[in-house]
């Protein structure tokens, strides 16, 4: 297992390197000078622009900037945000709980609703539950999450006045103020994930239920519950855990748009505004955080998959 883990980590090194390079190249391709954007509407002379350029190192050749940038990023120093005038890391840490609240809650709902529904759909194939699961997953994957967000605001916040329509309260301000503002975004983000996991779970379970060892367990006269839980589910779990990990990475991407809909000050909202303001350092940092989280989850999923499945590990 250890040697597999090491091999896997070694393979991630070039991927990380290319990912970082892509982030650098794309952020340097942003139109317009960040200096002009930084100085805003101020009437400035050429000398001032040059001074700020030199201060932030924008005047040097791009390759030189890159060679200076890469080791700095790898050492965890993300630089100074042009707009917040404080270290980018500080801004990101401040935003992180919002994005994590949203993605983790959505993942919890997805697991709690999606996996049981998928299992029941497979076990009671053709039943009302199976039908419900199918409709829910087809709709979930077709509804644009941001539109679903607005429909929820329209129905629950504006129409029924049950929950606040947007904004964020940190957990320190109380559990309910935090949760009440998270419920609608969580539903909007999780419905598409539920759609995916229901289908995944259902088809994996059907495949497993069709195998000879499950037939064998049945032939021995085991109670159906034991057959499903101990023989089928345990084997299906390998695939399902993998899918859950990938869903988390997907949720990180989805949160970018959902945060805009519900005015949640998270990483996604930060990235979109930083892109518009050409705040290089903040944009890089935000994308880096989201991407590294996804990368880490992918790595963990790979390792978990190998742990549960000796065929992968020993191949």
């Amino acid at each position, binding site marked *: 297992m250890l040697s597999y883990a090491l091999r896997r980590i070694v393979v991630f090194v*070039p*991927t990380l390197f*290319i*990912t970082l390079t*892509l*982030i650098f190249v*794309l*952020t340097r*391709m*942003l*139109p317009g000078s960040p200096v002009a954007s930084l100085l805003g509407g101020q009437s400035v002379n050429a000398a001032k622009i040059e001074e700020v350029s030199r201060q932030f190192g924008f005047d040097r050749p791009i390759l030189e900037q890159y060679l200076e940038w890469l080791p700095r990023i790898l050492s965890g120093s993300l630089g100074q945000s042009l707009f917040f005038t404080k270290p980018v890391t500080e801004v990101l840490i401040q935003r992180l709980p919002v994005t994590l609240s949203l993605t983790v809650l959505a993942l919890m709902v997805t697991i709690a609703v999606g996996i049981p529904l998928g299992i029941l759909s497979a076990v009671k194939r053709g039943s009302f539950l199976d039908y419900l699961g199918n409709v829910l997953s*087809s*709709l979930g*994957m*077709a*509804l*644009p999450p*941001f*539109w*679903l967000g*607005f*429909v929820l*605001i*329209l129905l629950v916040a*504006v129409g029924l006045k049950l929950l606040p329509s947007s904004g964020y309260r940190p957990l320190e301000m109380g559990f309910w103020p935090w949760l009440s503002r998270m419920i609608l975004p969580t539903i909007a983000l999780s419905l598409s994930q539920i759609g995916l996991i229901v289908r995944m779970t*259902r*088809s994996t379970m*059907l*495949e497993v239920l*069709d195998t000879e060892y499950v037939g064998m367990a049945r032939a021995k006269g085991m109670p159906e519950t034991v057959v499903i839980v101990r023989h089928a589910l345990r084997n299906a779990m390998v695939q399902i855990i993998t899918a859950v990990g990938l869903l988390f*990475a*997907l949720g*990180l*991407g*989805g949160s*970018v*748009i959902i945060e*805009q*809909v519900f005015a949640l000050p998270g990483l996604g909202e930060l*990235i*979109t505004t930083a*892109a*518009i303001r050409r705040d290089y350092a903040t*944009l890089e940092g935000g*994308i880096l955080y*989201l*991407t590294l*989280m*996804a*990368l880490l989850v*992918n790595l963990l999923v790979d390792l978990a998959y190998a742990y549960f499945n000796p065929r992968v590990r020993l191949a």
Partner: protein
Amino acid sequence: MLSVGLMMLTLLMLFTLLTPLLVPIDPLGISAVDKLLPPSLDHLLGTDELGRDQLSRLVVGSGISLRIAVAATALTAIFGIGLGMVSGQYPAIDIVVSQISDSLLIFPGVVLAIMILAALGPSELNVIIAVFVLYVPRVIRTVRAAVIEYRDADFVQAARSLGASDLRVLVLHIFPRAIGPTMVQLSLGFSSAILVEAGLSFLGLGAPPPAPTWGGMISGAREYIRTAPWLMIAPGAIITYAVLSLNLIGDGLRDMLDPRSRAAGQ
């Protein structure tokens, strides 16, 4: 499922092509007196804050959305199949292609598309490029996997011993085996293209105004969510409809081409 999906998609195309023949279409016509009207006979879907007819905008938006999705999917198909075949066949090229496409897949969801559009600027062409970059790695992987699976198969070796070139073997002997999974990937990529385009234009990174994109219409309607909620409903409903029809086609193709999932689906 395939037939239902195809029927729904045909209806959407008919809606896009025929509505202009049935009602006067003027997606940009501004009228101060007619602003924020609820649906009526004159304006079947009401009007927005500038008095523009919503049905007109929806139809034109439908054209934009389908155009982007078709173009992005065609690009994805050409480059995905080409690069997938080459990298499955030649290990030296594979190292580069796979490494880059794996790195592209690491970026969560639309983050990569947001970066690309921020760098290139919002326009219809750049949305096509962004969607293409987002989905081409998936097709490369699918085709590459099929090539690797079959490149040492008996029928391939037989063809080679008869003197067939690499190109001939790849295109005529191996690629036919990859058509099924590739079609499924492409149809799912097509529906994702519509969702991603809607999301990007919602963020203001799609085709710039006054082009009436579906996502842009939803974004514009959010200020009027209390006073004119109907503005929000139609664009979202049509996105859902379009994506649903394409997903049904994708599922139908998968069931048709993969007997295992057909058994599971019933």
